C-alpha cells in the first residue's frame, strides 16, 4: 500500500525477479562452505571451557606430532596488535581487542573464546589434535549480568580498563564500565515537578543473536609471493580486507577478499573471527585452509547484541511528553563497544521532547563480544520508551496513536544530539496506522490485546563505488562491491535501468572482489540501496555523458544540441534520435569502450520511521502468547522494489517477535551458554508468526534522486514494545523484562516466581 504520491517511474516501484534468484533456488549459488581448492585442508578451533580465566601456558607439541596435522596456531603467531580504533561502518573496533577476540592472548573472557587452532588433512584429525593441546588456566570468577558487572566489587575483565567519558577518563580505579555518555537538554527537574503524570520503570533484556542460517566461514590461501586470497561470507569484503590487514600487519594490496554469497548477516558478519586464523594456518601449512563454524560456535563465540538494563522516568502534562530521565546500561560482552550510544540517540527520536537526561553505560561482561544486530541498540531502548509512552497515554486518557501523533517529531525537531531532523515521516506513519484497516477494526475476545509502538533508525551513508560497462549488444554490466543480502543486486540494477532508460533485464549486476572494484563499505546501516544506489545513478550519468559524446559523432550534431532521454540520445529540436543500443553497438568505432564509474561518500541520508500494530492472545494457564495479527507501517522513502522492501519489514518484525517472546541467551552461573542451539534458542518458526501486513508510506528522501531511505533496520525497532503493550492489554500485567516467555508470563500471572 502506497499512501503518498510520488513521480511515476518506469522501473522503480515494480517487482522484477532478482538477478541472483535462479542460482539461489536451484542450489548453484556458491557459499563459503562450497569453496573447493586443490590441496585444501581443514581447520578447527580450540575454545575456552571457562568463562573467565588467565592462560598460564599452552602446550601444542603433542598436537603438532599428530599424523595428518599441518599447522597449529596460538596467539603467539599473531603480530602484537596496537590499541587502535578501526571504523567498520556501523561499528568500530579496537584492533588489540579484535586480535585478542580472534585468538586469546593472556586471558579468556567468555566460554567459547578461541584459544588455539589446528589445520589437518580432514576435520576428524584436526578435532583429535585439538584434544592433545594442553592449556593451563587460572580460573577466575565470571561476571555475567550488566548490573553485577557495574558493582565496585565485581570481578574485573581487565585490570587496565578505566571508565571513559566524553570529557576523558571518568574513573580513578579500573572498572568494567568502559564508557559513560550523557545526552542532556532543557530542565528535567522543573518538568517533572510540573507534570500531570509520571511513569517510572526498570526494564531488562537478554543478549539475543541474529540467528543467520549460514555459520561464519573462511578459506584462506597464502601464496609464496606473500599475497593472500580469502573466500568468506561477509557483509563487506573491503572491511574484511582492512581488518585482516591491521590484525596481521599486512598491506591491503597483498590481500584479495572474494565475497561468497551470504546466508544472512543482520550486522553479525561485519567483524572478523576466522579469516586471520585461516590465513596464518595456511601460511604455516603451505596449503589453503578452510574453517567453518558449527552452530554452537556461532552462538557461543560470535557477536550477539547486548543484554540491557534501563531505568526510565517519563513525564506528561496536558497530553505532551515533557521530560525523560534514563539510565541505560548495555552489555558489551568481553570487550567494550555495545551499541548503548545508538540506543540513547534513537530512543526519543520519534518525539519532540524538550527536557531530557540520558546516561548511557557501556559495560563489559564475561560473554561474547557483541556485534551489530539490525538497528543496533535501538530495539531495547525503544522497548523502554514505547512502554512508558503507552502508560502515559493511558494516564492522559488518550488513544496511544493519537498521543504519539501529538508528540511526534517532524522536520526541524532536534535529536538528543542537538542535530535537527531533515524531512522525516513519523507523523505520516502514525496517521497511516490510525487509518489502517487493522487499527480501524475492533479487537474482541477474552485474553486478547492490541499494542502499538513506533521506532526510528538513522540509516547510514558511507562509501560506495560502482563501475558500469556497456556491452556492444546494448546491455550493461554493473560491477558493484556491496554484499547482496536483501535483494540489492535487483534494487541497484533497477536504479541503473531507470536512469539509463533501458530494460531491467539488460542490466547484469555482479558483486566483485576487492581487486576488481573501488572501495565499498559494508552492506549495513540500511545503506546499500541508498548509497550504492547514489553511486549507480552517478555512474549512469557518466554513461549518459559518454553516450551524448558518441551520438554527436554518429549524428553529426554538436554535443550541446543533444540530450539523453528515455534510453536514447535526442537532439533538442527532436528531429534526431539514436537509441542506447545503437550507440552501444558503435562504441568500437566512436572512441572505444563505454565505461562509467562513480565513487562517493554518500551524503543526504534519510532516517527511517516505523509504527507497528499487533494483536495477541495470551493463554493464562500456560503463559503462551500467540500473535494473531500484525501490521507494520513504515516510511520507506521510495520503495525501489516493493516486494523486497516488504520482505525486509516482515523479516525485521519476525525477528522482533522472537526477541519479544522467546529469544534469550540463557547462561548457567558458571558462564555456560545453556541454549547454544536452534532447538533451545527459540527463534520463531513459520508457525509462530502470522502473515505480516505492511503499509509502505513513501515520504521521499530529498537526499536521493529517487527518494530512497534505508528500510532494512527500523522494522525491528518497534516490535518489542508493541508486543509488550499488547500483552499488557491482554493480561492487565505490565511486563518490563524480556523475553515475555511462557515461563515469565505464567510465573507472573500465577504468582509463582
Amino acid at each position, binding site marked *: 500500500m502506497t499512501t503518498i504520491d510520488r513521480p511515476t517511474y518506469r522501473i522503480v516501484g515494480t517487482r522484477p525477479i532478482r538477478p541472483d534468484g535462479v542460482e539461489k533456488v536451484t542450489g548453484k549459488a556458491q557459499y563459503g562452505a562450497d569453496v573447493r581448492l586443490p590441496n585444501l585442508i581443514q581447520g578447527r578451533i580450540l575454545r575456552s571451557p571457562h568463562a573467565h580465566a588467565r592462560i598460564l601456558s599452552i602446550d601444542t607439541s603433542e598436537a603438532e606430532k599428530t599424523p595428518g596435522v599441518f599447522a597449529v596456531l596460538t596467539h603467539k603467531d599473531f603480530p602484537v596488535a596496537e590499541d587502535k580504533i578501526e571504523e567498520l561502518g556501523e561499528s568500530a573496533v579496537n584492533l588489540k581487542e579484535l586480535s585478542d577476540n580472534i585468538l586469546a592472548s593472556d586471558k579468556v573472557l567468555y566460554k567459547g573464546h578461541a584459544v588455539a587452532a589446528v589445520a589437518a588433512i580432514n576435520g*576428524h584429525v584436526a*578435532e*583429535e589434535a585439538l584434544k592433545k593441546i594442553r592449556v593451563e588456566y587460572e580460573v577466575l570468577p565470571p561476571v555475567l549480568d550488566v548490573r553485577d558487572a557495574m558493582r565496585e566489587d565485581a570481578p574485573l575483565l581487565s585490570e587496565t580498563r578505566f571508565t571513559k567519558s566524553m570529557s576523558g577518563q571518568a574513573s580513578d580505579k579500573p572498572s568494567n564500565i568502559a564508557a559513560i555518555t550523557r545526552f542532556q537538554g532543557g530542565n528535567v527537574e522543573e518538568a517533572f515537578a510540573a507534570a500531570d503524570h509520571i511513569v517510572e520503570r526498570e526494564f531488562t533484556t537478554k543478549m539475543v543473536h541474529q540467528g543467520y542460517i549460514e555459520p561464519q566461514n573462511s578459506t584462506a590461501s597464502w601464496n609464496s609471493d606473500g599475497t593472500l586470497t580469502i573466500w568468506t561470507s561477509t557483509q563487506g569484503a573491503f572491511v574484511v580486507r582492512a581488518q585482516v590487514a591491521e590484525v596481521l600487519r599486512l598491506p591491503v594490496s597483498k590481500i584479495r577478499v572474494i565475497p561468497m554469497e551470504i546466508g544472512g548477516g543482520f550486522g553479525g558478519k561485519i567483524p572478523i573471527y576466522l579469516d586471520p586464523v585461516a590465513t596464518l594456518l595456511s601460511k604455516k601449512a603451505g596449503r589453503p585452509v578452510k574453517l567453518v563454524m558449527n552452530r*554452537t560456535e556461532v552462538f557461543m563465540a560470535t557477536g550477539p547484541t547486548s543484554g540491557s538494563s534501563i531505568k526510565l522516568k517519563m513525564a506528561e502534562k496536558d497530553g505532551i511528553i515533557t521530560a525523560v530521565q534514563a539510565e541505560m546500561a548495555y552489555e558489551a560482552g568481553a570487550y567494550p563497544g555495545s551499541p548503548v550510544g545508538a540506543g540513547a540517540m534513537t530512543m526519543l527520536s520519534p518525539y519532540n521532547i524538550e527536557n531530557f537526561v540520558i546516561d548511557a553505560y557501556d559495560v563489559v561482561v564475561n560473554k561474547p563480544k557483541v556485534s551489530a544486530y539490525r538497528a543496533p541498540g535501538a530495539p531495547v531502548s525503544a522497548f523502554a520508551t514505547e512502554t512508558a509512552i503507552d502508560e502515559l497515554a493511558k494516564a492522559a486518557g488518550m488513544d496511544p496513536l493519537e498521543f504519539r501523533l501529538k508528540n511526534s517529531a517532524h522536520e526541524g525537531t532536534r535529536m538528543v544530539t542537538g542535530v535537527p531532523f531533515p524531512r522525516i515521516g513519523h507523523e505520516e506513519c502514525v496517521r497511516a496506522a490510525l487509518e489502517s484497516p487493522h487499527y480501524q477494526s475492533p479487537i474482541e475476545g477474552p485474553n486478547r490485546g492490541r499494542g502499538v509502538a513506533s521506532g526510528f533508525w538513522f540509516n547510514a551513508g558511507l562509501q560506495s563505488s560502482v563501475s558500469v560497462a556497456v556491452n556492444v549488444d546494448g546491455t550493461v554490466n554493473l560491477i558493484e562491491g556491496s554484499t547482496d543480502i536483501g535483494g540489492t543486486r535487483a534494487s541497484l540494477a533497477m536504479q541503473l535501468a531507470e536512469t539509463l532508460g533501458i530494460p531491467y533485464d539488460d542490466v547484469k549486476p555482479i558483486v566483485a572482489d576487492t581487486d576488481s572494484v573501488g572501495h565499498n563499505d559494508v552492506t549495513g546501516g540500511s545503506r546499500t540501496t541508498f548509497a550504492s544506489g547514489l553511486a549507480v545513478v552517478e555512474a549512469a550519468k557518466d554513461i549518459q555523458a559518454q553516450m551524448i559524446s558518441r551520438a554527436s559523432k554518429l549524428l553529426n550534431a554538436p554535443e550541446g544540441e543533444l540530450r539523453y532521454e528515455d534510453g536514447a540520445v535526442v537532439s533538442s529540436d527532436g528531429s534526431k534520435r539514436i537509441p542506447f543500443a545503437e550507440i552501444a553497438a558503435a562504441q568500437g568505432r566512436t572512441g572505444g569502450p563505454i565505461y562509467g564509474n562513480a565513487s562517493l561518500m554518500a551524503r543526504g541520508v534519510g532516517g527511517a520511521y516505523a509504527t507497528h500494530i499487533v494483536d495477541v492472545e495470551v493463554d493464562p*494457564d*500456560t*503463559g*503462551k502468547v500467540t500473535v494473531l495479527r500484525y501490521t507494520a507501517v513504515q516510511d520507506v522513502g521510495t520503495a525501489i522494489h516493493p516486494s523486497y522492501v516488504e520482505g525486509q519489514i516482515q523479516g525485521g518484525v519476525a525477528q522482533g517477535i522472537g526477541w519479544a*517472546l*522467546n529469544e534469550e541467551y*540463557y547462561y548457567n552461573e558458571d558462564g555456560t551458554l*545453556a*541454549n547454544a542451539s*536452534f*532447538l*533451545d534458542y*527459540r527463534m*520463531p*518458526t*513459520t*508457525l*509462530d508468526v502470522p502473515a505480516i501486513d505492511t503499509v509502505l508510506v513513501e515520504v521521499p528522501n530529498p537526499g536521493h534522486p529517487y527518494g530512497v531511505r534505508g528500510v532494512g533496520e527500523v522494522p525491528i525497532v518497534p516490535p518489542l514494545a508493541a508486543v509488550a503493550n499488547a500483552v499488557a492489554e491482554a493480561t492487565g500485567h505490565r511486563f518490563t523484562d524480556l523475553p515475555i*516467555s*511462557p*515461563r515469565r508470563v*505464567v*510465573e507472573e500471572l*500465577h504468582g*509463582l*516466581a
Partner: protein
Amino acid sequence: MENFDYLAPRSLTEAYAALGSGRTSLMLAGGTDVIVQLREGRKQCDQLIDLKHIPELMSYGFAADGTLEIGAAVPLAQLYEDPEVRRRQPALCDAATIIGGTAIQSRATLGGNLCNASPAADSSPALIALGALLVIGSDRGTGEVPVEAFFAGPGRSSLQPGEILLQVRIPALGAREGAYYHRFIPRNEMDIAVASAGVRIGLDESDRIVSARVALGAVAATPLFVPSAAEALIGQPATRETFEKAGAAAAAAATPITDMRGSAAQRKHLVSVLTVRALERALERIREAR
C-alpha cells in the same frame, strides 16, 4: 567424531553376536538422536549397530486380542499414516506426530525414542499411560517390562549389555476407554516438551471412572508414572473437579528442575494444567467414539 564401524545385521542372531563381541556398541533404530550425539562427541562407540535390517524389528500389527505390537525400529510415520493405528491408538499418534518433523519421523522410532531415555521424550508418557509393555531380548531369551520400569535416569535405560529392545506392546483400548497425550512447548514446532502429560481413563455405564493411568514427561529424572493421580480419578465422576484433583496430585508428584527450557515452578504449574486438559480430551474421545 572418532572412527567407528558400522554394522547392519540381517537377523537378531547376527545382532546378538555383534553385541557379544566385547567392543563398545551403540544401536541405531532411526539414528535421529544417536548420530547427532556421536557427531557432537556426547557418545562414543567402537561399532554402531543398525537395527533397521532385522525383519522382526521392522514390522508391526494387531494381535488377535487387539494388542498393537510394534517392532522397535518401525518408523513413526509408518505408524501414524496407518488409519487403523490412528483409529485404535490415537494417543500413540499424539506422540508419534510431534517427535521431530516429517523428515525425522520417516526415520525415527519408538525403540530409539525409548532407549535414548530422555526425561522429555514424547513417546514415554504416552506409552506409560497406555500401559504398554516392552519386549527385551538377548541371546539368553526374551522378557517383558512395563515402560515405566524401563528408565534408570536421564539418558539411561534399564537395558543391560547384550540386550536389545525388540518390541512395544500396547494393549487395546476398551469401548469406554480413551487416552490422550500432549505437551507444552513455547513455540508451535521445533521444540522439546517443557512438560507433558499422557492419560488413559476408562468409564463405567454411569460415566464413573473405573480405570486410569497418568504419566508425565520432563518433570523428573525419568518419565514419571503417577499412580496417585490415577487414585484421585478412580471411582469418581468424570468431571472437571475430579480432573483438577488428579492435576493437583500429578503436580505434587513432579520433581522438576529449572533449566533453559523452563523453571521448576512453571513446570509444576504446567503439569496440573496439562493433566486436566489431557483428561478432558481423553473424555472427549470416549464420547466421540460412542
